[in-house]
């Protein structure tokens, strides 16, 4: 629990803000019971490591909605209704990720996080807030939060971010060689090969692929890509990220039988070996 953050994670300073979502990015699980059947809508729920989460949120309805949605995605979530209760629960329990609202009764969300960090607890924290501006995000991350998501959010966005935060599910953070199927990316020599054949990439394409491969098997949303590959946190309004991803896809997947870079409808992208 108290293990230090892997350096690769820490090397992404400006992690998240969501000021809006591309039009096609909405939660598909809204259909309720059908969720488990629609594997394409939420492939991350299939055969994934189960996470234990703590949701600290005073809006009971929102918290219950979140817990239900997380359960449908295969994770377990506990609820705490105020800052003090949240701090106690976080200290007592073993959680993979904490989801903390900023405006909480009894103890402010940021104060809760600072207190946890002061006690040496490094459990990843996703801050949820209605305050979404640049400076609020910076304040949140400075207080010790690992990621920041603005309300209202799409659940697919929250799920992708929570899974990216969890150390249990973030596989290749510290490796120097990423491998997905027959696709290999060498972080030291900046070489990318597929089936032994070198694929020349632009520097930004390399970073895009690197981020996707670090989170191989996980859904990566468009805003996550914009933030981590370009270091911008605004909503680009148009499908700029899609164009970049489709360019990359044409380089790494074209001419190969098996597709590795998948579009996850309504959520984002995922790189994975289809056979897995």
């Amino acid at each position, binding site marked *: 629990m108290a293990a230090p953050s892997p350096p690769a994670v820490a090397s992404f300073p400006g992690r998240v803000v969501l*000021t*809006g*979502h*591309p*039009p*096609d*990015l*909405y*939660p598909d699980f*809204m*259909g309720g019971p059908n969720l488990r059947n629609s594997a394409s809508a939420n492939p991350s729920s299939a055969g994934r490591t189960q996470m234990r989460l703590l949701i600290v949120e005073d809006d009971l309805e929102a918290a219950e909605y979140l817990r239900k949605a997380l359960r449908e995605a295969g994770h377990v979530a506990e609820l705490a209704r105020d800052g003090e209760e949240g701090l106690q629960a976080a200290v007592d329990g073993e959680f993979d990720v904490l989801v903390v609202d900023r405006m909480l009764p009894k103890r402010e969300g940021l104060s809760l996080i600072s207190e946890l960090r002061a006690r040496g607890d490094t459990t990843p924290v996703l801050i949820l807030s209605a305050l*979404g*501006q*640049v*400076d609020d995000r*910076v304040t949140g991350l400075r207080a010790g939060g690992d990621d920041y998501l*603005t309300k*209202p959010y*799409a659940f697919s966005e929250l799920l992708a971010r929570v899974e990216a935060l969890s150390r249990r599910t973030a596989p290749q953070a510290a490796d120097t060689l990423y491998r997905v199927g027959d696709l290999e990316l060498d972080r030291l020599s900046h070489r990318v090969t597929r089936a032994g054949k070198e694929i020349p990439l632009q520097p*930004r394409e390399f970073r895009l692929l690197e981020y996707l491969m670090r989170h191989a098997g996980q859904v990566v949303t468009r805003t996550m890509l*914009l933030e981590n590959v*370009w*270091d*911008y*946190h*605004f*909503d*680009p*309004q*148009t*499908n*700029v990220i899609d*164009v*970049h991803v489709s*360019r990359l896809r044409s380089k790494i997947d074209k001419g190969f039988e098996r597709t590795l870079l998948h579009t996850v409808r309504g959520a984002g992208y995922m790189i994975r070996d289809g056979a897995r």
Partner: protein
Amino acid sequence: MTALGKLVRTTAFKIVAVYLIIFALFAAGIIAYLARHTQQLVVSQITETVDAEMRSLQEEFTVGGINRLVDVVETRAQQPGSNLYLVTTFAGAAIVGNVEVPNETLGRPGWSEISYRRAEDPDDRHVSRALVRVTVLPGGFRLLVGRDFEERDRLRQILAQPARWAVAFLVILGVGGGLFIARRVLKRIDAMTETSDRIMAGDLSGRLPVAGSGDEFDRLANSLNAMLERIEGLMTGVKQVSDNIAHDLKTPLTRLRNQAEEALRASKSEADYRAALEATIDESDALIRTFDALLMISRAEAGEVRTHMADFDAADVANSVGELYEPLAEEKGLKFVVETDPPLPCHGNRELIGQALANLVDNAIKHGEPVTPGIEGEVRVNSRLQGGRILLTVADRGPGIPDGDRKRVLERFVRLETSRSRPGAGLGLSLAAAVAHLHGGDLLLEDNNPGLRATLAIPVPSR
């Protein structure tokens, strides 16, 4: 509060009162100083006179003995306005003289200040003060010479009387002047208060009266008027924006509601419901985006994000934004060129400048399709340093913006196509302008012949 109480309470009156007290004390001090010195002068004149007289009488005594002295004293004592003289035997019996003095005075040789009576008219009970000198002559005779303090006292009176008048005059003048000035000040202030009361009551077009004399009240009134001008402008802006919000947010809200209603009424299958819900989420996402953009603009305009300013390279921002949008431009068949002067150190909020530039590039790509025959579609992103400002320019070859509309497009929610067929809420340029203003700069819109050239001009931090 009575009218007088109000006057007395004014700052002007208080200042006048304080100055008056200081001035009166100062004047009294000068008068007292003068009086003292004049008196000292008079006293020293008296002693000199007495000394001279004493010397001459002693000479007479030396020359002609007691008889001669008595003769001389007798003569001198008779003269009008004469000094005081007295010659006695060693026992103290008066031989000649024009004063009666207490015996102990004669027993003490040297200077003393005494009360005396003139000897010549015994009816006069008037006792005067005098400065006398007693000398013991050979043979035990005592000689007293003195002079009345009358001159000194008269001088004192001459000085004291006008001094009293002067101080009284000063106080009356000061109080009167203070009240007069206070009244004038109060009149101006009352006029200002009245106007501001009217303004507070809701009449924002009211302005404070300016007398035109260029005094400090005029300066204050002018600067308050300028402030009112700005407030009125902001209020008008707010009103306009809220009208626009009402319109531009109600439209998608209405669509949202219609879609939901339509789904309830007409949906037959689960797929229908799903499609309707998806459309609903799309619509609400668009609404959220609009809200976020509005919030961002108003916070940038209020200068709230100023706390998170840092140093960064503006050329790098131009490069990365350019690189982000380049594939999009290519997909639309537009040539995309990024020219940067590296590096351009800039101080500000990189995130906001990046977003502002991204909005300009996004606009250029959306609206940059050439309409003029023979012109190739092109979007050019340029960053350079010119005249102490960092210029981040995005130029396209599209239809551009007509001269008359350039100011208008910077307002919130203004979109030039009335059809509103293309996506966007009309906030992109407003945000870019707000970001430029936040950094003390400007958003310039120029003709690219044909096309639009939009420039974020950010002043370079002075070191």
